[in-house]
């Protein structure tokens, strides 16, 4: 059969996000795939070298549109490490609760993308609605819906407003009450099983060779989670489980997303119970005249997509000398995706791509 070249995205019905893959196909079968990023390259890391330490916060959260909060945390942790700043205990708890809320929001967004791609429009609408409830919480806490700029070096910007704790519990109960509905219509649905089982398999060996993290690693049975390995914020102060699956296919990865959302809800309840009183912010030097001592730091955390890292260099001036984000989608989208697509059919490209949990802005930065 004749070999053809097919441009899949950015203007393609099966593509979610500004990303493109050049496929070499023979009939319906993919022989070779070339990931082609760059549609959202804004050069943030270069821009950040020309802005003061504190001015960079509105920039970092825009690196990943779906999940801005982990980026804020990473940058704040990097600055804290370089400048030797401690944060109060209550701020650690608030950070954890805030990040888990963000994780649920991001997973619901991911579920929207995946369900929409498979044609489960009802599930997609539900997920978007429930994400909106979480955005309402963020709006009350920070004033912003999508970009919050809430975490700062030294703690968080403000304490919980009055009655906020009850609102979190109420919202999470109303979302959690819909889990059986989600299960009935989507997760236990035979169509989902048929479409996702044994599709886009990434084995343990392949994942290790190609830098897999997050759901890709956990779908092969390894409890690889930075929140457990190198605990930050208040994650070491409560008991919680890392959900895993064994098969390494799209079906396992989406089930892990579901289990993680439920685990996050339980974590938030435990954190709210144990949260101490006190201040939420340690005073930092005047941010307009803030020179951070010479040095370099590498910090990492678990975003909703996997291991997120930040390499940061300071030369003792008021601006960072070099900032480089290690994003989970980078290896997933540029290395693993190209391998996982070989021998798949064209109808499964979107399926494999979204189940690997790739977001384009995170790759391009």
């Amino acid at each position, binding site marked *: 059969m004749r070999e053809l070249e097919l441009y899949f995205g950015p203007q393609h019905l099966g593509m979610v996000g500004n990303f493109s893959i050049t496929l070499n196909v023979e009939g319906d079968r993919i022989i070779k795939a070339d990931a082609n990023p760059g549609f959202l390259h804004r050069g943030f890391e270069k821009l950040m070298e020309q802005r003061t330490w504190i001015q960079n916060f509105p920039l970092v959260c825009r690196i990943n549109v779906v999940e801005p909060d982990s980026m804020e945390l990473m940058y704040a942790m990097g600055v804290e490490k370089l400048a030797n700043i401690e944060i109060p205990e209550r701020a650690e708890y608030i950070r954890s609760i805030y990040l888990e809320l963000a994780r649920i929001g991001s997973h619901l967004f991911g579920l929207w993308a995946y369900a929409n791609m498979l044609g489960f429009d009802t599930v997609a609408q539900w997920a978007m609605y429930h994400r909106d409830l979480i955005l309402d919480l963020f709006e009350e806490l920070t004033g912003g819906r999508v970009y919050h700029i809430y975490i700062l070096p030294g703690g968080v910007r403000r304490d919980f407003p009055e009655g906020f704790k009850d609102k979190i519990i109420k919202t999470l109960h109303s979302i959690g009450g819909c889990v059986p509905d989600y299960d009935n219509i989507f997760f236990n649905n035979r169509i989902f099983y048929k479409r996702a089982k044994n599709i886009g398999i990434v084995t343990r060996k392949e994942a290790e060779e190609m830098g897999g993290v997050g759901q890709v690693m956990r779908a092969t049975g390894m409890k690889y989670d930075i929140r457990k390995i190198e605990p930050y914020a208040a994650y070491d102060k409560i008991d919680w489980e890392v959900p895993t699956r064994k098969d390494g296919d799209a079906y396992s990865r989406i089930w892990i997303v579901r289990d993680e959302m439920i685990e996050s809800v339980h974590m938030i309840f435990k954190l709210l119970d144990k949260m101490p009183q006190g201040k939420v912010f340690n005073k930092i030097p005047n941010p307009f005249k803030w020179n951070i001592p010479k040095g370099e730091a590498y910090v*990492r955390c678990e975003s909703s997509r996997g291991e997120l890292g930040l390499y940061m260099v300071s030369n003792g001036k008021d601006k960072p000398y070099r900032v480089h984000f290690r994003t989970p989608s980078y290896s997933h989208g540029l290395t693993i995706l190209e391998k996982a697509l070989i021998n798949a059919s064209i109808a499964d490209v979107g399926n494999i791509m979204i189940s690997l949990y790739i977001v384009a802005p995170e790759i391009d930065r």
Partner: protein
Amino acid sequence: MNKSLKEKLLSSFSDIQIDITEDNKVFINTKKDDVISVLNFLKNLGYKHLALISCTDWIEENEFELVYILSSYMENDTEYRNKEKTNILVKTRIPREKAEFVTLINVFANAEPYERELHELYGIYFEGHPRLTPLFLEREYKIPPFRKDFDTKKYVKEVFDNIPFVKDRKEKK
């Protein structure tokens, strides 16, 4: 844990400088001929996860600093040990004028896009890399844009200030 790693490295390589910080970060400085063998050595010790390849432009010293960040996956699926907490930063310097280095693809498969990115943004040539084609950028630049001597403001002024405003075009008609 990290001390025995230090001893192993010191006994295998000459001309290597190792700093261990309290928060489990191991900084290794070595000369550029040794980097690939140091990384190979660490991979065989179980540090199999290449998290990042980064580069810093030290323009005053006229050098690029390449940084390879490694960590390890879990050996046991459920048990957390101290080994995974360790991040190893292997650093080396290469001259700025003739920015060339060898590729790491044969050791770590996911080095490919990172090296492609550094080639595009810093102009570092990686020998043996199968596709050093453009990754993010769509225009040609005289100086690779992430180098410190690339002036963003000047570039924007030169390129975008030469496009006439809508009003001027109307007047010409």
